Protein backbone atom coordinates (compact mmCIF):
# COMPACT_ATOMS: atom_id res chain seq x y z
CA UNK A 1 0.00 0.00 0.00
CA UNK A 2 1.40 3.38 -0.88
CA UNK A 3 0.90 6.71 0.79
CA UNK A 4 0.63 9.45 -1.79
CA UNK A 5 -1.21 12.71 -2.27
CA UNK A 6 -2.95 11.85 -5.54
CA UNK A 7 -6.41 11.99 -4.02
CA UNK A 8 -7.85 15.27 -2.84
CA UNK A 9 -7.77 15.61 0.91
CA UNK A 10 -10.96 15.31 2.94
CA UNK A 11 -12.66 18.56 3.81
CA UNK A 12 -15.24 19.52 6.34
CA UNK A 13 -16.93 22.55 7.83
CA UNK A 14 -15.14 23.88 10.85
CA UNK A 15 -16.04 26.89 12.97
CA UNK A 16 -13.63 28.64 15.28
CA UNK A 17 -15.68 30.50 17.85
CA UNK A 18 -14.69 32.58 20.81
CA UNK A 19 -17.04 34.48 23.10
CA UNK A 20 -14.65 37.31 24.09
CA UNK A 21 -15.68 39.56 26.92
CA UNK A 22 -13.32 42.52 26.81
CA UNK A 23 -12.74 44.94 29.67
CA UNK A 24 -12.93 48.50 28.36
CA UNK A 25 -10.98 50.35 30.99
CA UNK A 26 -12.27 53.69 32.26
CA UNK A 27 -11.85 55.75 29.08
CA UNK A 28 -13.52 53.55 26.51
CA UNK A 29 -15.95 52.62 29.26
CA UNK A 30 -17.01 56.26 29.61
CA UNK A 31 -17.04 56.67 25.80
CA UNK A 32 -19.46 53.76 25.39
CA UNK A 33 -21.52 54.72 28.44
CA UNK A 34 -22.14 58.22 27.04
CA UNK A 35 -23.24 56.78 23.71
CA UNK A 36 -25.52 54.24 25.39
CA UNK A 37 -27.15 56.54 27.94
CA UNK A 38 -27.09 59.97 26.30
CA UNK A 39 -26.36 59.56 22.60
CA UNK A 40 -23.31 61.78 23.10
CA UNK A 41 -19.89 61.28 21.58
CA UNK A 42 -16.69 62.07 23.44
CA UNK A 43 -13.13 62.72 22.33
CA UNK A 44 -9.91 62.78 24.30
CA UNK A 45 -8.07 66.05 24.66
CA UNK A 46 -4.31 65.58 24.56
CA UNK A 47 -1.54 67.68 26.08
CA UNK A 48 -0.97 69.31 22.70
CA UNK A 49 -4.58 70.43 22.65
CA UNK A 50 -5.70 67.97 19.96
CA UNK A 51 -8.96 66.11 20.38
CA UNK A 52 -8.93 62.47 19.32
CA UNK A 53 -12.17 60.64 18.64
CA UNK A 54 -12.35 57.72 19.16
CA UNK A 55 -10.55 58.54 22.42
CA UNK A 56 -7.16 57.16 23.34
CA UNK A 57 -5.74 56.15 26.71
CA UNK A 58 -2.17 57.33 26.22
CA UNK A 59 -1.04 60.73 24.99
CA UNK A 60 0.59 60.10 21.60
CA UNK A 61 3.18 62.84 22.12
CA UNK A 62 4.06 62.71 25.83
CA UNK A 63 3.20 59.03 26.39
CA UNK A 64 1.51 60.04 29.64
CA UNK A 65 -1.64 58.26 30.75
CA UNK A 66 -4.73 60.27 29.92
CA UNK A 67 -7.73 60.60 32.19
CA UNK A 68 -11.52 60.46 31.85
CA UNK A 69 -11.45 64.09 33.03
CA UNK A 70 -9.83 65.02 29.73
CA UNK A 71 -12.77 63.70 27.70
CA UNK A 72 -14.74 66.42 25.90
CA UNK A 73 -17.92 66.30 23.88
CA UNK A 74 -17.54 66.18 20.08
CA UNK A 75 -20.03 66.01 17.22
CA UNK A 76 -22.63 64.68 16.97
CA UNK A 77 -22.23 65.73 13.38
CA UNK A 78 -19.02 65.36 11.50
CA UNK A 79 -17.49 65.39 8.09
CA UNK A 80 -16.37 62.51 5.87
CA UNK A 81 -12.61 62.50 5.29
CA UNK A 82 -12.58 59.37 3.15
CA UNK A 83 -15.15 56.81 2.03
CA UNK A 84 -15.80 53.74 -0.09
CA UNK A 85 -19.03 52.36 -1.50
CA UNK A 86 -19.62 48.69 -0.72
CA UNK A 87 -22.04 47.26 -3.26
CA UNK A 88 -22.33 43.93 -1.49
CA UNK A 89 -22.43 44.10 2.31
CA UNK A 90 -20.60 41.34 4.18
CA UNK A 91 -21.63 39.24 7.18
CA UNK A 92 -21.62 41.22 10.39
CA UNK A 93 -21.73 44.62 8.71
CA UNK A 94 -23.86 47.38 10.27
CA UNK A 95 -26.20 47.42 7.26
CA UNK A 96 -27.63 44.76 4.98
CA UNK A 97 -28.07 47.00 1.97
CA UNK A 98 -25.26 48.69 0.01
CA UNK A 99 -23.62 51.36 2.10
CA UNK A 100 -20.44 53.41 2.46
CA UNK A 101 -17.63 52.89 4.91
CA UNK A 102 -16.27 56.24 5.96
CA UNK A 103 -13.72 57.93 8.11
CA UNK A 104 -15.68 60.61 9.91
CA UNK A 105 -14.09 63.55 11.69
CA UNK A 106 -16.65 64.64 14.23
CA UNK A 107 -17.02 68.36 14.87
CA UNK A 108 -14.36 69.39 17.39
CA UNK A 109 -12.15 66.37 16.77
CA UNK A 110 -8.79 66.17 15.04
CA UNK A 111 -8.94 62.50 14.12
CA UNK A 112 -11.56 60.36 12.41
CA UNK A 113 -13.81 57.50 13.43
CA UNK A 114 -14.53 54.53 11.16
CA UNK A 115 -18.19 53.72 10.64
CA UNK A 116 -20.89 53.09 8.05
CA UNK A 117 -22.86 55.76 6.21
CA UNK A 118 -26.35 54.84 5.04
CA UNK A 119 -26.32 57.21 2.08
CA UNK A 120 -28.69 55.29 -0.17
CA UNK A 121 -26.47 55.45 -3.23
CA UNK A 122 -22.85 55.92 -4.18
CA UNK A 123 -23.64 59.22 -5.89
CA UNK A 124 -24.71 60.67 -2.53
CA UNK A 125 -21.21 60.14 -1.11
CA UNK A 126 -18.57 62.81 -1.27
CA UNK A 127 -15.43 63.54 0.74
CA UNK A 128 -16.23 66.56 2.88
CA UNK A 129 -19.96 65.83 3.19
CA UNK A 130 -21.52 66.19 6.59
CA UNK A 131 -23.06 63.26 8.42
CA UNK A 132 -24.84 62.66 11.73
CA UNK A 133 -25.08 59.48 13.83
CA UNK A 134 -28.23 57.38 13.94
CA UNK A 135 -28.37 55.55 17.27
CA UNK A 136 -29.98 52.16 17.88
CA UNK A 137 -33.21 52.04 19.87
CA UNK A 138 -31.82 49.26 22.03
CA UNK A 139 -28.31 50.03 23.19
CA UNK A 140 -26.01 47.76 25.11
CA UNK A 141 -22.78 49.76 25.26
CA UNK A 142 -20.46 49.45 22.30
CA UNK A 143 -19.62 50.96 18.93
CA UNK A 144 -22.69 49.30 17.40
CA UNK A 145 -24.97 51.43 19.55
CA UNK A 146 -24.37 53.77 16.66
CA UNK A 147 -26.36 51.98 13.97
CA UNK A 148 -24.68 54.03 11.29
CA UNK A 149 -24.26 57.63 10.15
CA UNK A 150 -26.59 59.37 7.70
CA UNK A 151 -26.21 62.48 5.57
CA UNK A 152 -26.98 65.62 7.52
CA UNK A 153 -29.75 67.64 6.00
Amino acid at each position, binding site marked *: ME*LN*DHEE*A*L*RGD*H*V*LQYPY*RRATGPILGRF*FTEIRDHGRLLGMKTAAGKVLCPPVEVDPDTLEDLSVDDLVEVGPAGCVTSWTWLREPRPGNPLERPFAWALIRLDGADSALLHAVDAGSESAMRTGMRVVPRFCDERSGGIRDIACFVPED
Partner: protein
Amino acid sequence: MADAQKPVTYIKTPIAIHYDYSIGTGSSTFMRAIREGRILGSRCPDTGKVYVPPRLSSVETASPMSELVELPDRGVVYTYCIVNIKFYDQVLEIPYAYAYIVLDGADSAIMHLIQECSVEEMRPGMRVQAVWKDPSEWTESLENIRYFKPTGEADLPIDTIMNQIRKKSYA
Protein backbone atom coordinates in the same frame (compact mmCIF):
# COMPACT_ATOMS: atom_id res chain seq x y z
CA MET B 1 -34.29 53.85 25.25
CA ALA B 2 -31.38 53.34 27.59
CA ASP B 3 -32.24 53.48 31.30
CA ALA B 4 -29.90 54.39 34.09
CA GLN B 5 -27.59 51.42 34.14
CA LYS B 6 -24.20 50.70 35.53
CA PRO B 7 -21.36 52.31 33.56
CA VAL B 8 -19.97 50.22 30.74
CA THR B 9 -16.94 48.27 31.92
CA TYR B 10 -16.78 45.55 29.29
CA ILE B 11 -18.07 44.73 25.84
CA LYS B 12 -18.89 41.38 24.31
CA THR B 13 -17.24 40.80 20.94
CA PRO B 14 -17.87 37.20 19.89
CA ILE B 15 -16.23 35.90 16.74
CA ALA B 16 -17.10 32.89 14.61
CA ILE B 17 -14.82 32.13 11.68
CA HIS B 18 -15.97 29.48 9.24
CA TYR B 19 -13.51 27.24 7.44
CA ASP B 20 -13.82 24.85 4.57
CA TYR B 21 -11.15 22.89 6.36
CA SER B 22 -8.87 20.52 4.46
CA ILE B 23 -7.09 17.94 6.62
CA GLY B 24 -4.27 17.08 4.24
CA THR B 25 -3.06 13.77 2.85
CA GLY B 26 -1.81 11.86 5.91
CA SER B 27 -4.99 12.36 7.90
CA SER B 28 -7.22 11.79 4.86
CA THR B 29 -5.53 8.45 4.24
CA PHE B 30 -6.16 7.53 7.86
CA MET B 31 -9.79 8.65 7.78
CA ARG B 32 -10.63 6.90 4.52
CA ALA B 33 -9.21 3.66 5.90
CA ILE B 34 -10.96 3.89 9.23
CA ARG B 35 -14.22 4.27 7.38
CA GLU B 36 -13.54 0.71 6.23
CA GLY B 37 -12.59 -0.38 9.76
CA ARG B 38 -8.84 -0.33 9.07
CA ILE B 39 -6.16 1.48 11.01
CA LEU B 40 -3.19 2.72 8.98
CA GLY B 41 0.22 4.06 9.83
CA SER B 42 3.23 5.02 7.73
CA ARG B 43 6.79 3.76 8.11
CA CYS B 44 9.88 5.99 8.19
CA PRO B 45 12.46 4.70 5.69
CA ASP B 46 15.34 5.78 7.96
CA THR B 47 14.30 4.53 11.40
CA GLY B 48 11.62 1.99 10.56
CA LYS B 49 9.29 3.72 13.00
CA VAL B 50 5.59 3.40 12.25
CA TYR B 51 3.54 6.55 12.83
CA VAL B 52 -0.21 6.53 13.38
CA PRO B 53 -1.92 8.41 11.73
CA PRO B 54 0.24 8.33 8.60
CA ARG B 55 2.26 11.37 7.58
CA LEU B 56 3.78 12.35 4.25
CA SER B 57 7.18 13.00 5.81
CA SER B 58 8.96 11.51 8.80
CA VAL B 59 8.59 13.54 11.94
CA GLU B 60 12.16 12.86 12.99
CA THR B 61 14.12 12.70 9.76
CA ALA B 62 11.95 14.71 7.30
CA SER B 63 12.30 11.93 4.71
CA PRO B 64 9.21 11.41 2.57
CA MET B 65 7.20 8.43 3.82
CA SER B 66 5.34 6.33 1.30
CA GLU B 67 5.01 2.91 2.93
CA LEU B 68 1.66 2.32 4.59
CA VAL B 69 1.30 -0.25 7.36
CA GLU B 70 -1.95 -1.71 8.61
CA LEU B 71 -2.20 -2.02 12.38
CA PRO B 72 -4.37 -4.18 14.59
CA ASP B 73 -7.01 -2.56 16.77
CA ARG B 74 -5.33 -3.61 19.98
CA GLY B 75 -2.39 -2.32 21.94
CA VAL B 76 -1.01 -1.22 25.28
CA VAL B 77 -1.74 1.77 27.49
CA TYR B 78 1.34 4.02 27.60
CA THR B 79 -0.07 6.70 29.88
CA TYR B 80 -3.48 8.00 30.82
CA CYS B 81 -5.42 10.70 32.64
CA ILE B 82 -8.55 10.59 34.74
CA VAL B 83 -11.08 13.21 33.70
CA ASN B 84 -13.20 14.77 36.41
CA ILE B 85 -14.67 17.65 34.43
CA LYS B 86 -17.78 17.43 32.32
CA PHE B 87 -17.51 19.05 28.86
CA TYR B 88 -20.33 20.79 27.05
CA ASP B 89 -22.21 17.86 25.55
CA GLN B 90 -20.33 15.04 27.19
CA VAL B 91 -22.52 12.06 27.87
CA LEU B 92 -20.01 10.04 29.86
CA GLU B 93 -20.19 9.71 33.59
CA ILE B 94 -17.22 11.16 35.39
CA PRO B 95 -14.65 10.12 36.35
CA TYR B 96 -13.42 8.44 33.19
CA ALA B 97 -10.03 7.73 31.67
CA TYR B 98 -8.41 8.87 28.45
CA ALA B 99 -5.26 7.07 27.42
CA TYR B 100 -2.37 7.14 25.01
CA ILE B 101 -2.40 3.72 23.43
CA VAL B 102 0.50 2.18 21.52
CA LEU B 103 -1.11 -0.17 19.04
CA ASP B 104 0.79 -3.42 18.40
CA GLY B 105 3.46 -2.58 15.84
CA ALA B 106 3.16 1.20 16.13
CA ASP B 107 5.88 3.53 17.35
CA SER B 108 3.60 6.41 18.19
CA ALA B 109 0.53 6.54 20.36
CA ILE B 110 -3.07 7.38 19.61
CA MET B 111 -5.39 8.90 22.15
CA HIS B 112 -8.74 7.35 22.99
CA LEU B 113 -11.29 6.74 25.66
CA ILE B 114 -11.03 3.77 28.01
CA GLN B 115 -14.26 2.18 29.22
CA GLU B 116 -15.30 -1.05 30.92
CA CYS B 117 -12.53 -0.37 33.40
CA SER B 118 -12.73 1.36 36.74
CA VAL B 119 -10.39 4.31 37.07
CA GLU B 120 -8.67 2.58 39.98
CA GLU B 121 -7.59 -0.22 37.65
CA MET B 122 -6.05 2.12 35.06
CA ARG B 123 -2.36 1.51 34.69
CA PRO B 124 0.42 1.79 32.13
CA GLY B 125 1.06 -1.53 30.45
CA MET B 126 -2.60 -2.56 30.43
CA ARG B 127 -3.56 -4.51 27.29
CA VAL B 128 -6.54 -2.96 25.53
CA GLN B 129 -8.80 -3.78 22.60
CA ALA B 130 -10.96 -1.46 20.49
CA VAL B 131 -14.75 -1.68 20.74
CA TRP B 132 -16.25 -0.49 17.45
CA LYS B 133 -19.61 0.97 16.56
CA ASP B 134 -21.77 -1.06 14.23
CA PRO B 135 -20.18 -0.95 10.73
CA SER B 136 -23.36 0.62 9.34
CA GLU B 137 -22.48 3.69 11.41
CA TRP B 138 -18.87 4.03 10.23
CA THR B 139 -17.76 7.37 8.81
CA GLU B 140 -14.41 9.08 8.29
CA SER B 141 -13.80 9.39 12.02
CA LEU B 142 -11.87 7.85 14.89
CA GLU B 143 -15.25 7.76 16.63
CA ASN B 144 -15.93 4.55 14.69
CA ILE B 145 -14.09 3.12 17.67
CA ARG B 146 -16.35 3.83 20.62
CA TYR B 147 -13.60 3.16 23.15
CA PHE B 148 -10.84 0.74 24.14
CA LYS B 149 -11.40 -1.79 26.90
CA PRO B 150 -9.00 -3.96 28.87
CA THR B 151 -8.55 -7.44 27.37
CA GLY B 152 -7.78 -9.12 30.67
CA GLU B 153 -4.46 -10.39 29.38
CA ALA B 154 -1.29 -9.96 31.37
CA ASP B 155 0.19 -6.48 31.27
CA LEU B 156 3.08 -5.76 28.94
CA PRO B 157 6.22 -3.99 30.16
CA ILE B 158 5.41 -0.64 28.61
CA ASP B 159 8.67 0.98 29.70
CA THR B 160 10.58 -1.71 27.81
CA ILE B 161 8.39 -1.12 24.76
CA MET B 162 8.94 2.63 24.96
CA ASN B 163 12.70 2.22 25.33
CA GLN B 164 12.75 0.08 22.20
CA ILE B 165 10.83 2.77 20.37
CA ARG B 166 13.20 5.45 21.58
CA LYS B 167 16.23 3.49 20.40
CA LYS B 168 14.91 3.59 16.86
CA SER B 169 15.14 7.37 16.80
CA TYR B 170 17.61 8.68 14.32
CA ALA B 171 20.46 9.91 16.45
